[in-house]
């Protein structure tokens, strides 16, 4: 009988030993046991993409991954990308292009974008839209999120990025407030 499992998984480069039930999801473990709350519980059904994390480098919805199956695997959440002092280029671009409003979808968006850029560092706008198709945002209308991903890929000032989407006062939007 295997109702309870002792597993070891690596989250953001740090190994953790946890005890889980068979049907616990990876999201349950991250949020409730490890207190890693970047991945959000939106729909808990794989529809909204808010819990997107990288599992061995592939984007997956953590709410549908059974935790015991993550034994020995490597998980990357938004916490593993960068810090407020030293943000990942994607995080900086989301910030400067105002790709976040309430912020609930942002960790999933950033991780889905990370998975895209890892595979394809020079995506077209259509490829960005396709890569983010599984992530719902109820605030922004998506435009600035797409611009942020393009800006992270190509840099500000590139003709593929809408320069108007950049914050007028990026220096005023400090990361720590």
């Amino acid at each position, binding site marked *: 009988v295997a109702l309870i499992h002792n597993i070891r998984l690596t989250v953001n480069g740090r190994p953790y030993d946890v005890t889980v039930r068979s049907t616990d999801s990876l999201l349950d473990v991250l949020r409730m046991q490890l207190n890693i709350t970047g991945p959000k519980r939106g729909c808990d059904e*794989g529809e909204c993409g808010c819990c997107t994390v990288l599992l061995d480098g592939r984007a997956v919805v953590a709410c549908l991954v059974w935790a015991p199956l993550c034994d020995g695997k490597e998980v990357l959440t938004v916490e593993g990308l960068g810090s407020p002092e030293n943000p990942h280029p994607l995080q900086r671009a989301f910030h400067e292009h105002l790709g976040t409003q309430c912020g609930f979808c942002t960790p999933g968006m950033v991780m889905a974008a990370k998975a895209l850029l890892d595979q394809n560092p020079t995506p077209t706008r259509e490829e960005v839209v396709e890569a983010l198709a599984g992530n719902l945002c109820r605030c922004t209308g998506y435009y600035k999120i797409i611009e942020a991903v393009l800006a992270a890929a190509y840099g500000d000032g590139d003709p593929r990025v809408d320069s108007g989407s950049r914050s007028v006062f990026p220096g005023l939007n400090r990361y720590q407030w």
Partner: protein
Amino acid sequence: MAAHAADLQASGPVYPPFFGPAPNADLLRPATLDEALGLLAAHGDRAAVMAGGTSLTLAMRRRIEAPEVVVYIGDLAELRFIRTDSDGLHIGPLVTHNQLAASPHVRERAPILARAAAQIAGPAVRNLATVGGNVARGYDLAPPLLALDARLTLRSPRGQRTLPLAEFYLGPAWNALQPDELITDILVPTLFPAQGLNVVRRRKANDFAIAQVAVVLDVDGDGLCRDVRVGIGFGFGVTFPVRATRAEAELRGRRLEQPLIERAAAVLAEESNPPDDGHASAWYRRKVIGVCFERALNQALGRPII
């Protein structure tokens, strides 16, 4: 039952009243196919098979399924392959939707299958969900596979059998799999290159089809239809994917001109059995499936799609 609950049931999908964390289950991880089949034979109806888990997890949270034992087959490397031989294209049941959509073999031989796979759910779900699970449950890969005349190999400790996909679906949420059987191979025979697929869904991503038609054609230079296969499906609902045999008979041996196509579309709408649920009404699905059919057929013929 409270009055408002009855109203909800009249207009939307019928879910059991309780949603919540899935009840715990015994999770077994066989390392070989024979071990997996042995476990399934030992546990019978009390066991469920899991690969990607995207469907089973939700069914358990909604109390639609309550297995005591879950046999995880995702470790069976021998079920994860895409290869071609003289019979056609073999697809392993553990291939994920993203792998299927990206495979050059699939894109070359069965472009409608690759396109269907690329449209299902979102990228992060397609990395988990497997072809075998989609086929077993009769979701959105089934209509293109029906049109491609796919054959399944089913294996149990008692032996092995092959079955045309058209004989696999027996009813809503009911297929020919015995409790101790696993799909071990999905064969897409080498077929006619004229293929078309048209899907209507409410959203472009993360949604089931509300109507879907896949067409595979053998047509000569004069536009005479020598053979045709049409698979239709209505996504996730109280129905199951089928071949549209009466519409096929309407087309076979005739020249594919617009009046005939419209007549066949009407026959297809007539013979289809669309579900009436919260995703779309049966009336709408019946209207739209004929349009899907015309578009899929015109795409297979390389004609412009209006």
